């Protein structure tokens, strides 16, 4: 008789965590979309695309977990040697979902890398273009190198010479590639925080977002692979999977709160614009876009209540519909905004 635990605990944790992550990332994508509609900026665009692919990746992971978790033995103990990899190969849907998961995982990494490289490109002036691109490219090359290595069996001669040792070394090396990426993505937000005035809340929000990104990239790698490898005793990977939802919440709160704070603090907006740091432009764009949306909403609700008053007092309906009001408002904002930005 051996010590055991119920694997349903892992399934429930994974399902809750991924549902939370999907919800948060979807919200964040919608926010980036609304900011991008106001300010067509490359950095905002790449952050939008990367959050969309991260949402799709979380959906694939979630679907994969739902598909393969019923095949897991209900109890896993010290003596258990389970082979869920066979279960994945046996279910065509799981194989398709697994491909989707891998493709979106690579795509989201690359898109987030592009966004980060754009965000930090100011540093190329300080340390030189060559040095900058070499430094920034290391996590991307490190991450992408595992795929040709696995497809073309580059390390076969090492693995055949000592399967266990080199199996462990290579798995650990490639496992750390996502972490290296996560740290680079987090550093981008951390550098924004570093250049902000100390007394502003935005500094803390950017740090929250940075922590969120780093933890998200570490935790997202467990995902469905926890189920593919079958039951592990003790359940290593359970802790990693339990924090995916929280990390995506930190990203949402960090980025969204920053945008709100910047939109409401003209002193901060001026400080950001005066800053020569290119990375602060992300904050400026999302903050200004947020401000513009708030103005629109506020003006629209005022116009609606005025129109309602007019109708009750005179019985005459306003000739402008909501789209026309928005169009007119955008023209006014376009006239006013550049003047304010120059200030």
């Amino acid at each position, binding site marked *: *008789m*051996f*010590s*055991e*635990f*119920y694997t349903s*605990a892992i399934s*429930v*944790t994974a399902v*809750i*965590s991924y549902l*939370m992550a999907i919800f948060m990332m979807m*919200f964040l994508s919608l926010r980036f979309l609304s900011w991008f509609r106001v300010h067509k900026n490359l950095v905002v665009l790449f952050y939008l695309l990367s959050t969309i692919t991260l949402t799709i990746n979380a959906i694939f992971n979630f679907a994969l977990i739902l598909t393969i978790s019923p095949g897991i033995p209900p109890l896993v103990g*010290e003596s258990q*040697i389970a082979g869920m990899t066979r279960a994945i190969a046996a279910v065509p849907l799981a194989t398709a979902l697994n491909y989707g998961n891998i493709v979106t995982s690579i795509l989201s990494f690359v898109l987030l890398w592009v966004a980060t490289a754009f965000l930090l490109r100011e540093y190329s002036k300080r340390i030189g273009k060559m040095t900058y691109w070499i430094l920034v490219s290391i996590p991307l090359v490190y991450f992408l190198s595992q795929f040709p290595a696995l497809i073309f069996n580059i390390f076969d001669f090492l693995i055949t010479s000592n399967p*266990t040792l080199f*199996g*462990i070394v290579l*798995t*650990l090396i490639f*496992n*750390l590639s996502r*972490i290296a990426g996560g740290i680079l993505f987090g550093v981008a937000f951390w550098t924004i925080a570093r250049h902000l005035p100390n007394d502003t*809340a935005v500094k*803390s*929000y950017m*740090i*929250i977002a940075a*922590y969120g990104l*780093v*933890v998200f990239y*570490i*935790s997202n*790698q*467990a995902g469905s*692979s*926890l189920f593919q*490898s079958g039951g*592990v*005793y*003790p*359940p*290593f*990977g*359970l*802790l*990693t999977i*339990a*924090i995916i*939802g*929280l990390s995506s*919440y*930190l990203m949402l*709160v960090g980025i*969204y*709160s920053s945008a*709100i*704070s910047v939109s409401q603090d003209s002193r901060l907006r001026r400080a950001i614009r005066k800053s020569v740091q290119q990375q602060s432009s992300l904050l400026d764009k999302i903050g200004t876009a947020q401000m513009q949306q708030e103005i629109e909403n506020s003006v629209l609700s005022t116009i609606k209540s005025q129109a309602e008053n007019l109708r009750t007092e005179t019985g005459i309906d306003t000739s402008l519909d909501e789209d026309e009001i928005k169009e007119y408002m955008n023209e006014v904002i376009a006239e006013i905004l550049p003047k304010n930005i120059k200030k």
Partner: protein
Amino acid sequence: MAPRILRSLGHQYKNKKLFAATIIVLISVLVLDSSLFRISDLIRIYATPEWTTPLFVLMSVVFLVGQYNLIQFAKTESRQIRERGYLHLNLLNKSVTIIQYLLSGIIIFVLLQILCFQNFIRVLLV
């Protein structure tokens, strides 16, 4: 006693450097956890419960404390924004806190299951 210890740990975020250290420890635990899970098949013959179970218990305790700190940090730092009622951030924060405590409960349940089973077997063998 336990809530007081948790509260004092939770207030570490007032000291930013100490909080950063807590997060680094949490991240290290997550890296170790994911790495051990990845190589679990390869080290199966070396992974005896004598060292893997205490390691898992230790990692879980550090994780629970670190996660609690992270939630408290986000809650304190986002207070201003949450009070303004944007995107129902307040409701979102409460929901996330409840869900994370639920997940912590599941982890504690698994820990108890592993530890109680082990003690039960030990008693049976004696």
